[in-house]
């Protein structure tokens, strides 16, 4: 009998709350396997982004264990958590924000400009060029964000998330507000870059889009962990995928 491999994400007995609002997240146990594609889903305000922030170490759990890529984030101080995040976690945000005063290449290299934990080298620049080439943006490397189309901006933001070669890619509602074609483009991009099989990145996507859910094998219904939500936020609920139950208590 062989023991199960370490998960990419393990939350056990985690508690987090926004004191003034009474909102609270309680996660008895959540495992996301390495290389898997996981969705945190649920209605607005149920705590999907909060859960993502706990996994990324942006927020700190009040209690419990948050282990990501084998590191217990609860045991790290703020600086160590930031260093861990910038090295091991790629973040894709809902609006794909770019820095307007930097060109495409410098936007991709942005994490190296703002963190002491990373060091910008020639190899990193080559990696950025390769990424831009793969994303068909190499000829736009000197363009400013305002000169890009929406799709190009999204690809730049994804390239920035991947430049540090993180094993974990977190995407916070990357398809919200997009039409069907753009949604599919973004989804294909994320899935393609996350890779498949051995050596694939773990991909976690916050979403409430059923089409996106269909493409991801593991579903986590975040509202199951939440209490104290605003009434309007608890109106809808989607069950976890029967194929890959993610939460167990």
């Amino acid at each position, binding site marked *: 009998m062989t023991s199960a491999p370490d998960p990419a994400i393990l939350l056990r007995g985690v508690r987090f709350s926004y004191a003034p609002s009474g909102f609270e997240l309680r996660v008895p146990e959540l495992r996301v396997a390495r290389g898997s594609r996981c969705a945190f889903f649920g209605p607005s305000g149920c705590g999907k982004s909060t859960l993502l922030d706990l996994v990324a*170490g942006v927020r700190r759990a009040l209690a419990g264990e948050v282990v990501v890529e084998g590191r217990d984030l609860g045991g790290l101080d703020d600086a160590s958590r*930031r260093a861990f995040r910038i090295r091991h976690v790629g973040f894709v945000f809902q609006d794909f*924000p770019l820095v307007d005063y*930097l060109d495409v290449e410098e936007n991709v290299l942005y994490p190296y400009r703002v963190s*002491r934990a990373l060091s910008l080298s020639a190899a990193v620049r080559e990696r950025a060029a390769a990424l831009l080439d793969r994303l068909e943006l190499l000829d736009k490397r000197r363009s400013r964000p305002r000169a890009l189309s929406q799709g190009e901006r999204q690809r730049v933001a994804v390239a920035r998330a991947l430049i540090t070669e993180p094993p974990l890619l977190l995407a916070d509602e990357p398809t919200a507000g997009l039409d069907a074609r753009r949604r599919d483009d973004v989804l294909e991009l994320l899935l393609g870059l996350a890779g498949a099989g051995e050596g694939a990145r773990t991909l976690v996507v916050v979403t409430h889009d059923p089409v996106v859910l269909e493409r991801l094998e593991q579903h986590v219904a975040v509202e199951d962990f939440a209490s104290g939500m605003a009434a309007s936020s608890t109106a809808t609920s989607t069950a976890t995928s029967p194929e890959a139950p993610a939460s167990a208590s």
Partner: protein
Amino acid sequence: MLRDVLFLARRSLAAAPGRAAVLVLGLAVALFLPAFTRAAAAVVERALLERARSSPILVGARGSPFDLVMSSLYFRGGAGTTIRYDERSRLAEYGVAVPLVVRHSAFGVPVVGTSPEYFEQRDLVPAAGRRPALLGEVLAGSAAARRLELEPGDTVRSDLANLYDLAGGYPTLLEVVGIAEPTGTPDDDVLFADVRTAWLLDGLLHGHQEVRPDEALNPEADEGENVEASAAVFLFQRITADNLDTFHLHGSAGEAPVTAVLVFPRDARRHDQLLGDFALEETLQAVRPLEVVRSVLDIVLRVSAALDAYFAAVAISTLAFAALVVLLSLRLRAPELELMRRIGASRGAAAAVVGAELAIVAAIAVVITGVAVWAGLVWVGGLVT
């Protein structure tokens, strides 16, 4: 990390040049006003005091000590009244007494009549040529020579002192015999001549063609009696070897006017003695230029202090404006700052990027201010000397 922070700050500033320019200029103005005022006041103070310190006592006609000092030390304005030349002999008992006649000019440049002791006391040496020795000769100060494009051997015509004074001096051609070394003092801006040359420009000393009895106003004059020349007699307006002997002073030299006598007392006792002896003089005054200049500077410093308050108000309003621009800029950059926080940038990174921008703006403003203050001080220095 510092290199990266500076990189981002530079890019951010370059992307909004208008905002950067407003910040730089606002800060530069706020820095320049008080910095320049203080520095200029210090330059003026230093220059005025230095000149005053090197001029222990001035004796002139009773009146405004300020006018006497400005005229005799800085060659500005003219002493309205004069004293007799022979006061110099009396003052020589106390130390070196140097006569000064400051009331003539050539092309607007003061022509100062004095004696050779002046050059020795002021360490005024010719860079080219020599000091004036004969009537009608001048030594040009370095700046005056530059302004009038003079070289040794050139001539310069004195200005007409009074168009309606027919008995006064006529414009006379003065010969430049030397150019003085620059001293950085008001001596650079004038032409120095012998005191007799100043009297020549006064019209008290002149040369003219021989007056024949048949052209005289008193043709019946007896043998040995002075003949009186009429206006038809030709007055020489240039001193040459041929006519030098004809120049003469009407009356005694002791009664001729000087605007002041600069006294360099032999010792402290004579210094105090001179001031004491002249304290009760009814027609003369002995002043210590240092005291006069200090009293003027007191007023300047009081004005400067009032200006400081004004400039402080300007600086506060400028800084408030700059703070507003920075705050608005931070609001505009809120998405970027949030991005930095979420991807794992260090807590100080955002502050460092914004701080680096402000530091670059401040550094440029300081450089601009420094250059402007320097240029201003060069200009003020020129005015002072």
